[in-house]
């Protein structure tokens, strides 16, 4: 066998690159096709949210939780609100809980649409990405009806929600969910999911065994893609998730080894279906009217204490470790996000992989810059 000398060059998949979602930088040591190592260099979107949390009173920190993961801002709101409520011992009223769950699951659908679309855009299929954007437009108008904002919702308040659902929202949400589950996903799967080129590009790429996933503390769809059926909504039910029945999709080596990029892609598509089911059940069970926000003391203070609460965000487990020293502002707030641990595994997976595969791995792990840098 001829001995091919490995002429290494250092390549900058730099902060401004179409396929690094947002501003991530990879210093890639490659010989043109084969990659020896892709060392990530993050911090280009570090805005110091945890330092700002120490200056802001509890209630007015809520808009910043939108910007932790701007694709699923309502889930982050929910996580922060639950942390503060549990530490302060407040209970949200019934209707507010339902409105929260409906908003959270709709945001999960919207976030997965962009996650799947961005992966396909990196693999060169532009049309499915734009179709996902079209569906997301309906989601945006739904959110605009509910909370007044398209992207950074700022809808959940400590002790309840900000506005009641306007009339017409329920029908529109139901029709959106039905259209999505019965018409859009079938058409989407026919168009791209079972396309043989996509299967060749995603199967057996970036294989993460369950042990390696646990070792690198992967969470959310990345963990479930490797076959571990762990979902906080089922294993640690918070809010009212125990009243709905839905399955947890997990990677099963559909077109290749279990835990490859196709499994993570397929888990996200299945999760959209499950979220549609939850939204439908939540809409049916929601009480007609009831107050949507419990009163909280004006200069809102929390007795000293520490708490760690984690909720299931589209990109995995979003944990808030809150230490309060009894004052109006938190003493220390640590935000643990799903993409943070997903980044550490990219370096591990990138050995002996082609540039095109690295792009597929980053897309399948669905990494978002603000979640890593906060």
């Amino acid at each position, binding site marked *: 066998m001829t*001995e*091919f*000398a490995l002429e290494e*060059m*250092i390549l900058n998949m730099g902060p401004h690159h179409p396929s690094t979602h947002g501003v991530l930088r990879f*210093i890639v040591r490659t*010989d043109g*096709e084969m990659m020896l190592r892709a060392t990530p260099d993050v911090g280009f979107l570090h805005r110091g949210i945890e330092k700002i949390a120490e200056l802001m009173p509890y209630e007015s920190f809520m808009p910043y939780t939108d910007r932790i993961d701007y694709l699923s801002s309502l889930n982050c709101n929910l996580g922060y609100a639950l942390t503060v409520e549990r530490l302060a011992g407040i209970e949200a009223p019934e209707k507010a809980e339902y409105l929260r769950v409906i908003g959270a699951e709709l945001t999960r659908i919207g976030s997965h649409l962009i996650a799947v679309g961005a992966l396909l855009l990196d693999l060169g299929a532009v049309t499915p990405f734009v179709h996902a954007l079209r569906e997301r437009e309906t989601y945006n108008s739904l959110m605009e009806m509910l909370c007044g904002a398209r992207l950074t919702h700022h809808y959940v308040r400590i002790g309840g929600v900000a506005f009641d659902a306007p009339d017409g929202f329920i029908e529109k949400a139901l029709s959106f969910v039905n259209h999505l589950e019965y018409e859009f996903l079938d058409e989407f799967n026919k168009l791209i999911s079972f396309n043989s080129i996509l299967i060749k590009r995603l199967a057996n790429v970036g294989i993460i065994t369950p042990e390696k996933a646990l070792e690198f503390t992967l969470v959310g769809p990345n963990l479930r893609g490797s076959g571990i059926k762990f979902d906080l909504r089922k294993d640690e039910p918070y809010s009212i998730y125990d009243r709905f029945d839905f399955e947890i999709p997990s990677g099963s080596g559909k077109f290749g080894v279990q835990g490859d990029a196709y499994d993570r892609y397929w888990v996200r598509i299945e999760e959209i279906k499950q979220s549609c089911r939850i939204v439908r059940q939540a809409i049916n069970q929601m009480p007609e009217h009831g107050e949507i926000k419990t009163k909280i003391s004006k200069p809102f203070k929390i007795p000293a204490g520490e708490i760690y609460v984690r909720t299931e965000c589209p990109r995995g487990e979003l944990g808030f470790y809150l230490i309060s020293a009894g004052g109006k502002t938190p003493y220390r707030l640590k935000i643990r996000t799903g993409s943070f641990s997903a980044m550490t595994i990219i370096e591990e997976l990138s050995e*002996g992989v082609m540039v095109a595969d690295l792009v597929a791995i980053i897309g399948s792990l669905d990494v978002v810059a603000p979640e890593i840098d906060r």
Partner: protein
Amino acid sequence: MNPYGNIFVFFIMGFISVLAGMTLVRIIAPQRPNSEKNMTYECGENPIGSGWINFNARFYLIAILFIIFDVEIILIFPVIVNFRDYLISGRGAAAFAEIFLFVAVLFLGLIYAWANGYLEWLRSVRKQLRVEGRIMRIKEIIREESDMGDLDA
């Protein structure tokens, strides 16, 4: 009026139209070069090392295989042009035998290359990486220069 003259005229006209375009740009378009602008684009970073690396030998291998098969095509041309006349004059079988033999020998070349794995794009490099020691050596290099992480300015 030799029709091959057209080839020369077309080539020159192609050149002239691009030349006209570029001189028009030189006249009309603004020209404000500065050192920052003329730095090579590397996703917003200072480029590390030069862009002129000697790329891997697998491209050379593809070129060799290409030459073999292109020469084969050139040598078939005469037979193909006269094939119809051979058919009409009844000696079609001889022409077919000629094509078949020539192509079969070269097809064996392709089979040989295929069996030896020259057609694999990456396997050859990945197999070479698996040679014992080799992977360990690369891991040490990367561990030594562990501060490759922040090469920024």
